[in-house]
């Protein structure tokens, strides 16, 4: 019983990112709504979306997602105007799976895990707006090397420490700091 995300809900309607209300470029939100049983879709900038939200009496809004979802394929224009794009050719290819940069731009999908390295610049540009992706602080495969797992735990605790200090929870911060120094002593292969 998971909400359906079939193509009609996936909002990949066309390549435009202009707001349908005011015509400005830079629509950031898709809204789907049900009115009298029929589904309609509208692509809006933040401002128009807020205006619309204020006058929706009687209308059942049922879905809203950020426009970035599913937009990797459309980043061609964005990539060219983005910060310091690395010169790449569309014929650049992942030799492991045969996917080309043109494919990635067309479909928004990569073919294998090696693609993440081959097309790393493009993907960072599109998914992260050119910035480094946020460090992965979630679960990691157990088969990862011990030092990988250790490094990740240290990163996780360092972040926790920062947040605890920011909201002045010093007692908890102190125990996190203790745990960190323990870890640093036990670091496989020396200091971190």
């Amino acid at each position, binding site marked *: *019983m*998971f*909400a*359906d*995300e*079939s193509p009609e809900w996936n909002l990949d309607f066309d390549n435009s990112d202009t707001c349908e209300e005011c015509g400005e470029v830079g629509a*950031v*939100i898709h*809204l789907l709504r*049900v009115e009298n049983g029929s589904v309609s879709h509208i692509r809006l900038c*933040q401002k128009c*979306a*807020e205006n*619309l*939200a*204020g006058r*929706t*009496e*009687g*209308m*059942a*809004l*049922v*879905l*809203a*997602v*950020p426009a*970035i*979802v*599913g*937009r*990797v394929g459309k980043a061609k224009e964005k990539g060219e105007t983005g910060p310091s794009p690395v010169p790449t050719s569309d014929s650049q290819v992942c030799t492991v*799976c*045969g*996917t080309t940069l043109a494919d990635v731009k067309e479909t*928004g*999908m*990569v*073919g*294998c*895990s090696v693609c*993440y390295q081959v097309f790393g610049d493009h*993907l960072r540009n*599109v*998914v*992260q707006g050119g910035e*480094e*992706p*946020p460090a*992965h*602080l*979630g*679960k*990691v*495969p*157990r*088969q*990862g090397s011990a030092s*990988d797992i250790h490094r*990740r735990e240290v990163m996780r605790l360092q972040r926790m420490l920062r947040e605890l200090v920011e909201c002045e929870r010093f007692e908890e911060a102190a125990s996190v700091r203790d745990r960190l120094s323990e870890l640093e002593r036990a670091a496989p292969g020396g200091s971190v």
Partner: protein
Amino acid sequence: MSAAALKASGLGLSRNETGIRFPHAEEATALEDLQQRVEAALKNGGWDEPWRVHDLEELSPAEMTYLVEKGLMSPGFADGTGEGRGFAVYGDEVASLEIGGGDHLRLLGFRTGDELSVLWSLLSQLDDRLEGTINYAFDPCWGYLTSHPEQAGTGLRIYATLHVPTLMLTGRLASIALELVASGMGLSPLWGGAGGIIQVSNRGRQGKPEIETIQEIEDISRDIVEKERSVRKMFMRENPIQVRDHIGRAIGLAQHAWNMSFPECVNLLSAAEVGLELGLVDVPGLVGQAAFDAMRRLQPAHVVMEHMEAKQSGLESPEIDQVRARMLREIFAGARVLS
């Protein structure tokens, strides 16, 4: 208000194998090989509970939909086609595994109530075990890799099912949706919006630890349900006749209809639950989570599989609406509007 904020909790955990292409780009033989290796691992002992491996070819449309309605299979997987696709259910339907869908593997868990953390620890354990068979595609910066780079990361989708008919009918859901989107969440209807049942879900890449995102979704869900409850009370103060009329009519229909579509049925149960929470009605057949449970049981394939003789009669049979109406009359037997 003691009722749980979440009517149901759902998780989907995506994983891919390194060394082969993602499903959309891979050839049938490699995907079939993967399917066979995974199914062999599921059939081998060593799991706390047994897996039941299904043959997708042999499932009838009603059986397939039944799995989707139970939250054991995602709608996208049910609609999919291609080679090397497999499906298995864990234990007493506490979790399931899709093989060769949009990702090589996708673990699913679904249950009623506030159970996200419990589900996560179960899926995480199963994930650890599967790792003995599958070498996961993982990158220290991106996290777990998938064919859709904007979804690389934890691979975890979290779905919190909420009952918010008043927010939906008054349009207040729109502004809530905007706030959600601003914090990287999405909102979708579960049954086409019937009964004001929605699912709040995380969207896109997140580097955060799984449990933090779960916590965030739980907090957001509780806030939304709080708003729903306060808007209900406000409505009751300002338009008591309108509210009582709406709920009273729902009870009457539920007690006396002989033909009942699923969306209408969800709307009636939804109204009855609002009536119960506002203390306007007495429905002995509905207590606690029961309204949502009743909605689940009254889904089309549930009616066919659990209450009809001709299980192959298909999901178009007009008899379904008649059986559903009868079941609804039974639930509402003895229900009354309080004055």
